[in-house]
């Protein structure tokens, strides 16, 4: 009898717990809901009636979204494009080159490999502020009108405009900044890949070598597919980092020409005395919708990737 009571009591505590956590969850979502309701509210009411629904005279329809598109002297779609471009290219570069290097480092035991590996581990504990000034100056000096540009000029090729930014890969443009991300973000990726490659039995690669695969083919047809789980983890960590990063692109890019979403949103407040909060909230909503969709689609991988990255600090 007592046992039965105990079970019933436990079930009751579990239900209570579930309800309590459910309430906390609702509170947790409130900030996002506040963004949603305020993005449909006329600017003048955002500050005074932040938490009321946009009804009656407060209702702004989609005007905040339309205004937000060109708000701040810079079209929003351009920021979205550059953010997407930089995130995809940087992540792809990091995944390809760090996994290649990690495989080599894990399989070849030489001084150079060890040096690169320890430098990478070291770079993980260096905060960005340590290198931000010199890194942005380095990027500028290899930027437009730089060595490559001058060289091209000497060869009689005068290049300028967006085409030149694309062709010459100056580091201070969205087309060159993935190289900066590759350099500054290599540490964690190499660390995670080396750890994983070391757990792959060597016999598989030896079999491939006996079957006549050269190192390049061994890597791309045998090792690369096996790295998939770590690829996903590293990829997600890099996507989250690059997409949300503010300071690095802000310091490296030419802000008048190129902006990412975080820079765009920071500039809404930064440059004007009075901010159109309604339009700001509309843009914030637009910028978090894709993130939330991405999260709901790959939730399993994201949580796994984050946990894997955390263990390494």
């Amino acid at each position, binding site marked *: 009898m007592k046992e039965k009571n105990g079970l019933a009591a436990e079930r009751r505590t*579990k239900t209570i717990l*579930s309800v309590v956590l459910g309430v*906390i*969850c609702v509170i*947790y979502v409130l*900030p*996002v809901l506040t963004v949603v309701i305020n993005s449909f509210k006329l600017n003048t009411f*955002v500050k005074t009636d*932040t*938490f009321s629904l946009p009804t009656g005279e407060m209702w702004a329809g989609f005007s905040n979204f339309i205004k937000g598109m060109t708000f701040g002297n810079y079209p929003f779609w351009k920021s979205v494009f550059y953010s997407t471009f930089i995130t995809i290219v940087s992540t792809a570069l990091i995944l390809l080159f760090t996994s*290649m*290097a990690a495989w*080599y480092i894990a*399989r*070849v*035991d030489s001084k*150079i*490999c060890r040096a690169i590996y320890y*430098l990478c581990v070291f*770079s993980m504990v*260096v*905060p960005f502020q*340590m*290198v*931000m*000034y*010199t890194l942005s100056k*380095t990027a500028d000096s*290899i930027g437009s009108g730089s060595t490559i540009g001058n060289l091209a000029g000497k060869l009689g090729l005068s290049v300028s405009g967006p085409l030149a930014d694309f062709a010459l890969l100056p*580091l201070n443009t969205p087309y060159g900044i993935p190289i*900066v991300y*590759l350099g500054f973000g*290599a540490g964690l990726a190499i660390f995670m890949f080396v750890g994983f490659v070391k757990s792959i039995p*060597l016999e598989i*690669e*030896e079999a491939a*070598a006996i079957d006549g695969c050269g*190192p*390049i083919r061994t890597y791309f047809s045998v090792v690369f597919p096996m790295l998939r789980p770590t690829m996903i983890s590293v990829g997600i960590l890099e996507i*989250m980092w690059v*997409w*949300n990063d*503010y300071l690095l692109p802000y310091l490296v890019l030419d802000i008048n020409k190129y902006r990412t*979403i*975080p820079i765009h*949103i*920071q500039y809404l*407040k930064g440059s004007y005395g009075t901010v159109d909060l309604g339009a*700001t*909230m509309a843009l*914030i909503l637009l*910028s*978090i919708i894709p993130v939330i969709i*991405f*999260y709901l689609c790959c939730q399993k991988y*994201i949580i796994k990737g*984050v*946990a894997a990255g*955390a263990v390494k*600090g």
Partner: protein
Amino acid sequence: MKKKKPSSGGGLRRPIQKWGWLFLGPITAAFALGFVWPFLQGIYLSLCKFRLIKDAQFIGFGNYLSAFQDASFMHSFWYTAVFAIVSLVLINVLAFTVAYFLTQGIRGSNLYRTVFFMPNLIGGIVLGYIWSMIFDGILSRYSTSILLETKYGFWGLIILMCWQQIGYMMIIYIAGLQAVPEEMLEAARIDGASKSQTLFKVTIPNVMPSITICTFLSLTNGFKLFDQNLALTAGQPFVIQPDGSSIKTTEMLALNIYNTFYGQNTASKGVAQAKAVIFFVLVAGLGLAQLAFTRKREVQQ
């Protein structure tokens, strides 16, 4: 003559090494450009007086002296330290509690986990603006603002960081809690241990590695915080010192370094770089302490 024993990859080794330039080349070049060179140059410039890199003049340790004598830097250091410790305690206690309850097999655990983790994907700048709207929405009823009082700025940032980080730490704690052997918990139950005894004597000692990781992570996150700080208060309110300089009362270390670099005083770049080196030593020290701590624990197990 030292004869090297053929390593386990003997048969594979020679052909790979011919391709070393291909496998290591791109990453080494990018790494040298994006990290090694700026890092070394940064150390050198912290010992120089400069407005532009090309007219840097070596002056020794003067910049470090100025950095330590800078009242705003010392203020931001203590502010950051207090912030990091308060946020560390709150985030970890709350995250562990949530993780503990979510592993008790209650209904809706997965949904709750999804919701709690969600704020992590939103970037720091966006988070800052969301919360500054919310806090101002509340505080405007009392005709004040988050920018007007240091304590509002401090607790506002704490609330923001809790909202963002609890889900992250919770994930690590859940992984740790799920790895506690079921037999151990059952043995405790059979021996008549109460729920709280089981929690403190069995569960917590077993998740110590997760606790170490989370503690250090939240500590270094607190120290390195920048985006959220910039977007929420950007250091406001300011206090004017007797000597005319101002202290930004809610400015943390990273933001202080940034403001010293890119603020109005263009002659202070050397000092800013020295501050950055001090900041690096501090953060790297925390990172290495974590490594040593985890290593020691791994040996013990």
